[in-house]
């Protein structure tokens, strides 16, 4: 076990765990946006920044990826940390003025919008937290969506913004999206699902008749797990 101090509280944490995990396990809240338990932390939103002190040196690090060290002293509320946190939220509010999630988070953390920043109109609610892309790659395994361009023009989508040949319509990306930017639409009767510009025929459960998953998704699961397709045509509730 590693001994460290977070906000003046002495903590013990497993070797290899991150400051974020160590804090969360000890009731210390650090705000996050791009963090998700099931995917490798990218440390890209920087909202979870904390100030650490090792010997004489202090610096700001992303707590979701910094591993605990013996005798580390962590401050999750220092002036420098609050400065970073405030700017991150102000920048995101300017980037995604329509996002209620960001606005509410900012309010909760006492951050006012920075009026000097011109509001973007073309980014929707996407804060580029990267969770959708990572989930599609790491959890689902098809990498149907990815990043394009770089810098402020960076965005997420399918190649050439055309319907993807490998997307299985599982909706995992929409599920993890923290702001609801990714649109997954289903027709009234539930027979069709549209996501990333691709239309999927939904399969009806053999037992209850509810439309529950795209054909492509079931075929993919069948291939990956070896479970025969007809077994997969029963929805989760009925199994």
């Amino acid at each position, binding site marked *: 076990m590693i001994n460290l101090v977070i906000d003046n509280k002495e903590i013990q944490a497993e070797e290899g765990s991150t400051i974020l995990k160590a804090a969360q396990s000890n009731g210390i809240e650090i705000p996050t946006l791009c963090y998700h338990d099931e995917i490798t932390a990218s440390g890209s939103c920087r909202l979870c920044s904390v100030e650490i002190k090792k010997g004489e040196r202090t610096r700001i690090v992303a707590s979701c990826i910094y591993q605990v060290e013996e005798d580390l002293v962590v401050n999750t509320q220092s002036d420098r940390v609050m400065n970073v946190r405030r700017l991150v939220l102000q920048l995101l509010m300017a980037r995604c003025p329509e996002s209620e999630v960001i606005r509410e988070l900012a309010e909760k953390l006492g951050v006012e919008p920075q009026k000097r920043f011109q509001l973007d109109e073309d980014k929707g609610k996407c804060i580029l937290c990267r969770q959708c892309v990572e989930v599609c790659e790491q959890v689902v395994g098809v990498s*149907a969506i990815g990043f394009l361009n770089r810098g402020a023009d960076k965005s997420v989508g399918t190649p050439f913004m055309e319907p993807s040949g490998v997307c299985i319509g599982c909706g995992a990306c929409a599920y993890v999206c923290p702001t609801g930017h990714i649109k997954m639409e289903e027709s009234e009767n539930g027979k069709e699902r549209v996501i990333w510009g691709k239309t999927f025929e939904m399969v009806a459960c053999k037992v209850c008749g509810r439309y529950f998953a795209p054909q492509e998704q079931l075929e993919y699961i069948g291939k990956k797990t070896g479970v025969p397709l007809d077994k997969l045509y029963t929805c989760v509730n009925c199994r």
Partner: protein
Amino acid sequence: MNEISISEDTIKNIVEKYHGEKTALISILQDVQKEYSFLPKDALSLLSEEMEIPFSRVYEVSTFYNSFSLVPRGRHVIEVCAGTACHVKGGPKLRSRLEAELSIECGETTEDRMFTLEEVRCLGCCSLAPVVKVDSDIYAYLEEDKIPGILENYREERRQSGEN
């Protein structure tokens, strides 16, 4: 747009040259671009299959780096250096003049597909600022008023070689 026909063999040969190594993706894309003067969608899709790299990643790499173009470029690529030394020695004026003469903005290609104008930082010719590069020709200490003449030279060359 993508009227180019991609030869499967050409793509396969390029991939072979690098033993299909996934890490060689950038070099492979550079070779493909050399072949077609840009990166056609079909070529990228083929590469994704041949190299077993997700199409989304091939696309990500193609759009991340400045030197790749997903649209056909002009016969001549004009690079205006916007490096610091060139910036303090009149580079911006050269850029404006080129944009005016060609009636396009930086990053665009002329309608007759003759010239693509791009900004680059930096060409490493800082002692010769301000610098403009057309294909592999470097124009050093370039004065604004020399630009029309230079463009005309390239046009004249094309006329003479019968192309247009």
